[in-house]
């Protein structure tokens, strides 16, 4: 079991005063369990400066926590300090989880997974919605062909999926600045460069194009690992990975940026079809000037 204090600081500076603004934050971590780990958000605090005129919380279609807030008086800087205390617990380590999955899911044919998904909705909201194309994840032919290489050589679902993750990890080069939010997946598929959301969108496209249900997860990674653990890539900002649905098992998280099955070092905040559904902070502002954005994330293990 591991407890964390996560501080996600976002600040904006505007060259011209903002007269009016509407925002949505998806920064509050969810509490839930999967067959491999459990997560509990013990405490969360969202401090917004200046003080918003209006603030309202709700759950979105996917069950993520959303906080709406708005301003109607001029300001030139905004800071959002999201601090959460989260507990992650898993009985596995990386080696152990692979052994567990390969043994437990040894008999699961990937063809059967697709067949079960096609046969109808047995959960609510339907997991099948995650096998359709979405705004950031078109079902590209390239992704399908790429994925087929892993699925053609074996009938085992778990083997193919883990191999696909490893191939993406190896074929892609982690290159901050090579892509932006909104870089088309087609470009990412061709260049094989980018950051965690590009890795994840591509892996999602691979799995969906074959008929699997796969969702996008936004969250955090442990910034400074405890002695003996490896420091993972993508820890300075929020992180992203994906999660594939396995009938009668549940959701299996996969982090292609680190070639890992997320366990205790990952913290989930929200999930959806792609980045657009879970953007940590979005908004519409009335201002004609330039915006300067600064983000810092600190994930500190608690004793």
């Amino acid at each position, binding site marked *: 079991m591991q407890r964390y204090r996560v501080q996600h600081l*976002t600040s*904006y500076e505007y060259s011209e005063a903002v*007269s*009016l*603004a*509407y*925002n*949505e934050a998806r920064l509050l971590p969810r509490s839930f369990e999967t067959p491999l780990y459990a997560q509990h958000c013990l405490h969360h605090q969202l401090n917004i400066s200046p003080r918003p*005129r*209006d603030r*309202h919380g*709700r759950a*979105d*279609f996917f069950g993520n926590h959303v906080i*709406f807030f*708005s301003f*109607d008086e001029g300001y030139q800087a905004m800071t959002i300090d999201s601090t959460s205390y989260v507990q992650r617990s898993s009985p596995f380590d990386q080696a152990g989880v692979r052994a567990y999955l390969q043994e437990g899911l040894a008999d699961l044919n990937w063809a059967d997974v697709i067949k079960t998904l096609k046969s*109808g*909705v047995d959960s*609510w909201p*339907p997991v*099948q*919605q995650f096998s*359709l*194309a979405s705004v950031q994840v078109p079902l590209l032919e390239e992704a399908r062909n790429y994925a087929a290489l892993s699925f053609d050589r074996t009938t085992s679902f778990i083997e193919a999926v883990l191999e696909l993750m490893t191939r993406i990890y190896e074929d892609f080069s982690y290159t*901050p600045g090579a892509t*932006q*939010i909104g870089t088309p997946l087609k470009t990412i598929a061709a260049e094989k460069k980018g*950051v*965690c*959301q590009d890795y994840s969108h591509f892996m999602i496209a691979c799995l969906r194009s074959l008929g699997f249900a796969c969702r996008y997860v*936004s969250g955090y*990674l442990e910034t400074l690992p405890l002695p003996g653990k490896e420091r993972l*890539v*993508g*820890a*300075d*900002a*929020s*992180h*992203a990975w994906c999660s594939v649905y396995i009938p009668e098992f549940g959701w299996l998280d996969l982090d292609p940026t680190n070639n890992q099955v997320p366990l205790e070092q990952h913290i989930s905040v929200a999930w959806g079809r792609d*980045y657009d*559904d879970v*953007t*940590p*902070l*979005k*908004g*519409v*502002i*009335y*201002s*004609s000037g330039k*915006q300067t*954005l600064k*983000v810092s994330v600190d994930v500190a293990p608690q004793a």
Partner: protein
Amino acid sequence: MTTVSALFKTYAPASAFDELLQADKPKAHWEAFIREFGRLSPEELEQASSEIRRHLKENGVTYNTHGQEGQGRAWLLDLMPSIYSQDEWQLVSRGVKQRAQLFKLILDDCYGTQELIKEKIIPLELIYNHRGFLLPSHGLKHDLSFYATDLARGADGKMWVLNDRAQAPSGVGFALENRTVISSVFPHLFQSSQVARLSSFFRDMQGSFASLSPRQGGEANIVILSPGPRSETFFEHAYLGSYLGYNVVQGDDLTVRDGYVYLKTIEGLEQVDVIVRRLDDYNCDSLELNGSSSLGTPGLLEAVRRGTVRVANSIGSSLLENPGLLPFLPSIADYFLGEALILPSVASWWCGQAAEKDYVLANLERLVIKRISRQNKRQTVFGAGLDEEALAQLRAQIRAEGHLFVAQEVLEHGTSPTLDGGRLEPRHTLLRCFAVQLGETYSVMPGGLSRSSARLGSVLINNRAGGTSKDTWVLTDSPQEHISLWQEGYQAEDYLPSQLASRTADNLFWVGRYAERAEAFARLLRSLFQVLNELSGKRSSQDRLEWSAFGSQLEALGKFSLQDLELNSKAFAKLQKKLFTLTLAHDHPSGLAANLGFLFAAAYGVKSAWSSDSWRVLDACQDLWREEKTSKPQAVSSKLNDLISLLMAFAGLNSESMSQGLGWRFLDMGRRIERARMMIKLLDAMLVPVFNDLEEDIVLERLLSTTENIISYRRRYRRILTVKHALELVLFDEANPRAVGFQLRRLEEHQRQLPRSKGYTLSVEEKLLIEVTSRLRLADSLSLSQARSKERSSLKNLLAQLLEGLEHYAVVLTGHYFSHTQVAVQLKRQEAG
């Protein structure tokens, strides 16, 4: 006497089903019409046709196809109505009602627990892949207040449904306008036929929208949310706004504060209860929906979620505009209602299923192909119209993404009679029916919008394809009583809703300015052309004198430097050409034609503010300048004369037939500011330079005549022509409507009546206005008229101060009342690592 009854004798439809004839004999419900219509003489018929064209044009009935304000395709209306018997209509009406109910149930289900998907009645992909399924709207209360469906008569005589419209169906205003025109052109014919009236439907519509208001007690504040004057159907938004008494607003006229929606008005923010949506739902809120659209209001969905406002039809209802639903509709009707469909849909195949997809691929060239989501307006493809290559391409698309495609059978259409080129011709007709929600049920309009194809055999019937519309008559057994609550026709100024939206005031202000500017401009040009005609071009002494006056006047236009213009015939020709361009060329950005264009655009933006008389005058101004260019000075002069008369008529209607509320005040303030500006410029150009005595007389005379002051001057000062007297009359006089002083006094009066914040200090614009008026009042006409060296410098200074003060005043005034908000932009988003 010859009559047009022969028209019916030559009418020979070839299809199996025709609306008018059965076994070569008119059907019973057409007999009365044929009898009455047949009595008309060919002349009367022709007269009626031109009457209709005139009527529609004057009411500004257009269907915009070029994205320009009011420049759309003229609406065409056939003299022959579509006529339905009472029995026939009962079936249609019941069918439409059932369908509306069914679609409301589908809407609630999809945005609720989705039983239809869980029970495998409809496939998940059909909903989740549809562009209209808006996740942020899930779990909210949904409304299908207004529904429309397109019906077509098959060759088998059955009515078939081709389309369902559930987002923001258009056409209801056009249907009403068609009825208004036809019943006024054929009052006798119409009254003798016992046609069901439309007014009760509009009363239901009003009741339906009002019932949505979440606010307890008091009258609901209802607005129509429109994409604006460039939208295809803006005419209808304005028409409905004035007919139902709602403000027509655009997204940035609304603002969300503390979870409530407000309309920006001259008097501050006014809470809005119900939004009648004519904007695509996807574009309604750039926070939660399409972030790249600036047409909506950010925060709107949040307000809907908190229940402080209702949107009709609800945001997300475009989900129902999904032809992929059609094949499943019978099962859905069975599931929800335990009923069979009263009106069948034309045979449709959703290509997300293997067997259906195979059938479609094999029969592509005989089918109509649609996408499940309306991505752009031209999304319907007729397989028969495609070549081999296009067919192959489409097949590949369907193979790859079948779930996005639907194929439909091409309906074998019946025919109905349409007047075309003086003959009665069989054409295919589409009937759009409308329904509004009334409690648990729906009220169906007894009639609808009928549209005919441009030619026989063409099944593409839409406004873009250039078809003709028809009035739709539903006959009844009982005589129809007139519901006096609603006058069927275009409403006058007093129907403007009481709150004055900032945008409306803004537009009215600019209508005032452009109208006045155009008038002053036209007067100046007219006077210049007159001189040009009189000048011989030879260097006579008289010409020389005239030339100086002419030159100073030209300077007032601010577009010529006279130094290099010589008094000779060559220079004349050049000058004349330049003036022609300034007067007539549409591409001259500051010319008269462009100015009229601005006037028309601003006026169209507040279409519902004008009476039909006012609109007719504006329309005539447009027509006058739309005609081919003329190169004869005489012809231009007479054109300018006509224009001035029309603009004066418009001004007269503004002051005589518009209720003198805040809107009128802004219109008049625009006028006053502009008139004062133009007169100051003229005074500066003509009276600041010092001429010799002979020249001065001519200059003064020109000044007085261009500003319409010559008669007043003669009456007051007889034959003594001096600069001092001219200044008193043209600059100072506060009782002379053609003097600068008068304009400033009127502005003061208006300013006092504007809503202002409480407090003991004057606002910036009040101070500015006091400064300008005081400057003028404290000046002295004698010292202003005195000249040192070559100019009257104190006059020059005063005029410059007045002009600057006035322009500053206008900027502050508009900034205060018209709330030009900054542009909304998306917050920069952060990347994940």
